[in-house]
């Protein structure tokens, strides 16, 4: 039956049909041909046949599926269409460009439709990854099972579809809806990549609140990312973005950045002039001027404190008000101080709030008031409590 082989060609020992098609060349006449016979999981080895136009029985026998009567055979043609091959039906492998068969240990066929195209299957279930191979479905598409009277079901990785149910199982594909876990909130993304900032927003977190972002990927050390970094959701193992408030605890790191924001020029000159050890620090969205080792008048339980003054973004058009000290102060004789009950955690230290305000007559004036005048308020308040 091998009259199709041009007689003038030299015969070779073995010809791999799949390989020749892949390389786009004509089959060479050979003593043996190699075809692929797959199992229902789409795994399989090359099988050797002597005849380029084998019958179903010949293919099954060559693949060791004996007796052939107990098996079913499908072929996959060059367009990816599946078709049943009867036992005594010859398949012109050479002409039709068939290099793959699927053999089933089964005696009845099932049918399934994928994106409107019906194909046979030799067992009662088909796996998601096999469907992908059969249908040539890209990774960025998901497979959905159509259902009646309930929402269609997305197939998880490796999940099987039961074909034994009444009626034809209909499947369709759609671009995957990418998902990311942001601090326990699942965020859907139409795109395979997402800006960290957008992910936070979608999860309902305010991205401007000063978070430290940690991206966790399975099997990798956790990595810090920025709000404007792009997370690639296609990357396997992406688990979640974890949020940590951007507060910095006490420690050596604290000395690294002394200036997170600017003050007025005259403020800086004044603080330098006084020889104070000061820094401006962001704690989340809050902006603190912190003066270290600020010397106190006598009469308190401490000789010096860290002094914090909150500087609003619109300063000096926005006024300064109150101040905070760490550690908390009492009078040296043990008495407490009025309007200092409230506590504030500033960069890991607990500060005592002194609720001191300009009185009704003296209002904040953006043209003349500044850190300099506010320090006068601080000093006056501290002196007043100890009767100086």
């Amino acid at each position, binding site marked *: 039956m091998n009259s199709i082989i041009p007689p003038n060609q030299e015969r070779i020992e073995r010809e791999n049909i799949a390989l020749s098609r892949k390389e786009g060349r004509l089959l060479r006449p050979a003593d043996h041909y190699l075809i692929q016979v797959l199992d229902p999981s789409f795994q399989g080895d090359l099988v050797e046949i002597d005849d380029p136009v084998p019958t179903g029985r010949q293919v099954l026998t060559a693949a060791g599926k004996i007796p052939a009567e107990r098996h079913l055979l499908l072929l996959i043609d060059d367009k990816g269409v599946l078709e049943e091959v009867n036992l005594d039906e010859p398949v012109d492998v050479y002409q039709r460009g068939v290099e793959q068969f699927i053999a089933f240990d089964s005696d009845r066929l099932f049918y399934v439709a994928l994106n409107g195209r019906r194909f046979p299957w030799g067992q009662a279930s088909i796996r998601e990854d096999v469907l992908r191979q059969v249908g040539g479905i890209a990774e960025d598409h998901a497979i959905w099972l159509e259902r009646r009277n309930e929402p269609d079901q997305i197939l998880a990785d490796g999940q099987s579809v039961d074909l034994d149910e009444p009626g034809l199982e209909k499947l369709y594909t759609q671009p995957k809806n990418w998902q990311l876990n942001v601090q326990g909130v699942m965020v859907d993304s139409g795109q395979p990549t997402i800006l960290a900032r957008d992910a936070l927003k979608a999860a309902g977190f305010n991205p401007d609140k000063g978070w430290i972002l940690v991206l966790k990927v399975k099997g990798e050390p956790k990595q810090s990312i920025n709000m404007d970094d792009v997370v690639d959701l296609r990357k396997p193992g992406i688990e979640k973005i974890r949020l940590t408030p951007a507060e910095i605890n006490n420690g050596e790191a604290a000395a690294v950045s002394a200036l997170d*924001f600017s003050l007025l020029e005259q403020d800086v000159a004044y603080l330098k002039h006084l020889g104070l050890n000061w820094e401006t620090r962001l704690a989340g*969205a809050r902006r603190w001027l912190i003066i270290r080792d600020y010397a106190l008048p006598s009469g308190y339980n401490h000789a010096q404190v860290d002094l914090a003054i909150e500087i609003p973004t*619109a300063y000096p058009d926005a*006024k300064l008000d109150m101040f905070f000290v760490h550690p908390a102060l009492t009078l040296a004789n043990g008495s407490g101080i009025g309007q200092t009950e409230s506590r504030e955690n500033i960069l890991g230290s607990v500060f005592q709030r002194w609720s001191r305000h300009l009185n009704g007559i003296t209002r904040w004036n953006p043209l003349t008031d500044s850190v300099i005048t506010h320090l006068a308020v601080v000093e006056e308040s501290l002196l007043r409590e100890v009767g100086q």
Partner: protein
Amino acid sequence: MSASNYNLPYKLALSEAHHAQLREHLFPGDGLEAAAIILCAQSATHRYVVNRILPVDHASCRVRSPDHISWPGTAIEAAIDLAEANNLSIVLIHSHPGGMLGFSAIDDDSDHEVMPALFEASELPSILHGSAIMTPNGAICARLYDRQLASTSFSAVHCAGDELLTWEASGQGGVMQRPMAFSAQMASDLKHLTACVVGVSGTGSIVVEQLARLGIGRLILIDFDEIEFKNLNRIVNATLEDARNGTAKVARFASAVRLYRDDIEVLPLKASIASREAIELAGLADVLFCCVDSYEGRQLCDRIAAAFLQPLFDVAVTIPTRQTNDGVAIGDVCGRVDYVKPGGSTLADRGVYTPETLRREYLRQAAPDEVTEQVAEGYIEGIADEAPSVISLNMRAASDCVMEFIARAYPFRQEPNQRRARTVFSLAAGEEELISETDFNRVPNPHLARGLIEPLLGMPRFSPSKVKA
């Protein structure tokens, strides 16, 4: 913005006070020419603002005649020293008592002598210096030179007082006439203007729609926000699809405007006005519309308008409520339009925002736990309503705002505009209250006409030093 800047016409803006000072000095009443030196900062590459004026003493001039003046070069030395600190441009101005709004051959020759000296004194390679003429009717024309002494005329000189004055030389030694309000000529005149709208939401979107349809030449739109479903009942041009996609408000308008205007340039910026990028873009504008809903936004617009000498139109609406036995009821339905001229009383002077409200707003954002009154101060006071149905109120207020602009640029009112520094309307009472510029206490504004001198707007938050924020 750099690319679109390239072919822009040069604009010069000065404050009413500087204009008055110049006019008084240049026309002392003797019919003879007089001179002054103007120091200019920039609000954008092609827009200059008069920062300071140094009059040249009449007595020190060697020659003063009706058509000629010769003044001492020593006066320039003082100007050079002042200009150097902030890379200011120096513009020499003198009067033409005869009324010719244009440069004579003598003026040209004189400039070619003086300009090289000015450039010699400056290190900055890109700096431009220039000269200007003022005529008895107060009109000014001006031009700039580069180091090769190639000159470019300012296409227009703007002075925003109670009226928005614009002088464009007609080419025949005169000044172009202002067109009549609401005429077709007004539309073509508006084509030469750039307006910046900050906040493109409830009122802002309607202001934008009006300006675009009126014929404004260039629109700068600044808003950080995206369209949400709750906005659809009050942002014109916003669609369901925009809400689904979270389309930026400015992007929606940039594309919507182009559906009916092909001769308009829209520069949308999705950013907070509290950003360097937004402030620098706003510097291109001839007129500023503030349609934001925050104190900080208004504070920044106030500073921008002062620093860049832009007339500012600020619009707001509010629905005060009151408590009744049956619950909360409408107290009033109000709108407010403020017109701020550069050097006039600011929004701060008028109490639109205060050091207290700014601090409270900062705390509400940075440390919400610190603030006790948690009810969002939305349209309806005391009611946290995400989607109040207020488009009719917004339209009224936005219309009043744009009408205020038209009345200033193309005057049509029977009463002086000066009486309408602020207009407040109450729909509940059916009243309109006018507040005059003289009703407000004005404090000195150290940021007036500073242009882009650092720190930007004179605010420490924009200090260019090596700090992170």
